[in-house]
């Protein structure tokens, strides 16, 4: 594929607001997880929540959108790194109708719906007035909000394929640009902590009771997180740093709804397709940002897939120990972290992993280190056996 330049990046997560604090945390090996203190939840787990979001001002000034936690997190991402201003300049270059919006989420504003059900009136059981379906339960909610705040009028959609959502939007945007539907796109992901995912992963016995430890022999599951990340993709390198999306690969496992294929067959298909579109060989990849959730099955299956494609020569790490697993935003958050690592020449360590599970054969980085980096790959896999791999690098 033709490279698409990442001309602006933005990130809000448990690591703070903006790409700078996130990268500093990676470099310092300092995570953002805390013991669960999400609203009135009493589950014994650790979470990566966006600090202070409850005290933020409403992001929407038009009065057309509800002011729920999801909209606040989406807005925090637009403010961070002056992303809105970068998009405004792009709007001047391309025109509002020529910039698309493709966002991933897995739960949109579900939290607001959960809270509304707690206050259902007796009798017919009606929900409280003022709960807006479009801004809460509906998966399109983040794209509706972000498109309006940025004043964009190009094509728009939400991809909701569980934990691969925030990666697959890069593929959708690349196709829309290639087909001529738009000249640039805002891609990203928005995810809010909610009780459905906290209790859902608990019911599947996949929630860790300590900060998640991807690839560690003692790993006990995931730590949930929330956040937003955006990338502005353009055909020309308006930022002048050469950072670009070079390839994407998508596949399905055809195996099980909530367990990955044990040999990582679908994962390997996605990685090979991404390398193929980038015109790169496995040996060209200098770093892999793993999906690396910290569950027993994911990390073993992903390793089998990674090992089958690149062997043990490529340094790999998981960054969910820093941010938590942000589900539908994870692909976008990790794309931004991968781009930061490319820009700064840094390979992050796998936070909280004390040693590498002997069943894992890929080269797992426990400690971060500086390294010159030309190409990197980021993996995202979701429920339903849905896989996406992205290749980023420098392009001239």
């Amino acid at each position, binding site marked *: 594929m033709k490279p698409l330049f990442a001309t602006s990046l933005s990130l809000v997560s448990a690591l703070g607001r903006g790409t700078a604090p996130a990268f500093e945390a990676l470099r310092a090996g300092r995570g953002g997880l805390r013991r669960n203190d999400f609203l009135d939840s009493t589950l014994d787990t650790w979470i990566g929540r966006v600090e202070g979001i409850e005290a933020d001002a409403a992001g929407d000034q038009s009065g057309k959108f509800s002011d729920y936690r999801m909209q606040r997190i989406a807005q925090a991402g637009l403010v961070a790194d002056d992303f809105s201003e970068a998009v405004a300049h792009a709007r001047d270059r391309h025109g509002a109708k020529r910039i698309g919006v493709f966002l991933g989420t*897995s739960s949109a504003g*579900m939290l607001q*719906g*959960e809270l*509304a*059900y*707690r206050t*259902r009136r007796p009798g*017919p*059981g*009606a*929900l409280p007035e003022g*709960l*807006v*379906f*479009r801004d809460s*339960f*509906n998966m*399109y909610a983040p*794209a*509706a909000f972000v498109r309006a705040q940025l004043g964009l*009028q190009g*094509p*728009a*959609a*939400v*991809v*909701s*394929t*569980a934990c691969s959502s925030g990666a*697959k939007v890069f*593929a*959708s945007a690349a*196709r*829309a640009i290639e*087909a*001529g*539907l738009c000249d640039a796109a805002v891609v990203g992901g928005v995810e809010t902590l909610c*009780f*459905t995912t906290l*209790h*859902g992963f*608990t*019911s*599947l016995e996949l929630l860790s009771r300590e900060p998640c430890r991807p690839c560690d022999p003692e790993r006990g599951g995931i730590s949930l997180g929330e956040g937003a990340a955006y990338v502005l993709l353009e055909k020309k390198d308006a930022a002048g740093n050469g950072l670009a999306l070079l390839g994407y690969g*998508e*596949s*399905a*496992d*055809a*195996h099980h*709804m*909530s367990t990955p294929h044990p040999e990582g067959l*679908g994962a390997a*298909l996605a990685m090979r397709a991404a390398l193929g579109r980038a015109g790169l060989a496995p040996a060209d990849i200098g770093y892999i940002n793993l999906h690396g959730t910290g569950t027993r099955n994911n990390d073993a299956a992903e390793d089998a897939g990674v090992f089958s494609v690149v062997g043990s020569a490529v340094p790999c790490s998981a960054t969910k120990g820093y941010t938590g697993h942000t589900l539908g935003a994870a692909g976008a958050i990790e794309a931004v972290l991968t781009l930061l690592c490319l820009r700064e020449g840094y390979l992050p360590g796998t936070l909280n992993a004390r040693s590498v599970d002997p069943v894992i054969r890929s080269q797992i980085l426990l400690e971060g280190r500086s390294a010159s980096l030309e190409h990197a790959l980021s993996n995202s896999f*979701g*429920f*339903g*056996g*849905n896989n996406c791999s992205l290749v980023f690098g420098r392009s001239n």
Partner: protein
Amino acid sequence: MKPVWLAGAGVLGPGLPDWNTTRDVLLGAAAYTDGPDPNPVPALLPANERRRASVPARWALTVGGEALAGSGFEPENVAIVFTSCAGDSTITHQLCSGLAAQPPEMSPTRFHNSVHNAPAGYWSIFARSRAPSSTLCGFDASFSAGLLEAATQAAVEQLPVLLVAYDLPAPDPLRALWPVSRAFAAALLLSPAPPPAGETYGTCGMRLEIGLADGDARSAWPAMLPPDLSTNPAAQALAVLWAVAHGGGRAELQYLRNSHLAVEISP
């Protein structure tokens, strides 16, 4: 944008059991008979999965299976784009009701079935396809968003793509927030190439050229179909299917505010 070819179609709704019946109804060759929403059992699902699979999954797999059947395309080579406005609002209601209880209740099966891409996951598993799979939402324009993604994927990747759109009425109390009252699903199998010389893509074989256009869509709702079906986002598909049934024409599908998809349909 490069054209794509419709190589298969599937339809399911009240009084619309399949594509062939729907075509006859849209042509006026058969009378439309309203009836209750169907309760489909897709052939793709093994017997032991039929009760476990969610209702949206059963609707999606039924129309997807119909579009693919007899098309000559094998599912393992066909990418899928599923699209739905509300997804599985019955599960949404069950999850929220359970979480409002003290202590909160949660079922693991219900949780994994709650992801927006659960029906697409069932398709991959039971059609044994590792081809790319996406699931979209575009609120009221979910069908348009799905058609744009599927056609773009077919044209750019030169890959056959199965588009499946479905939306089912929500249970109370969600119905008050999202007042869709009739169920509907449709599937379009899009090929990047015309059929080989001397062959056809069956009764729905048509060339589709899709573009983005300004202003609201002007395609009229088929007069013989119940007006309340028109509020189902998936029923946008009927504007395309109307033109397909009539051997060609222009379908306009409402997209985002003040914009529409203009679909030029020709043999």
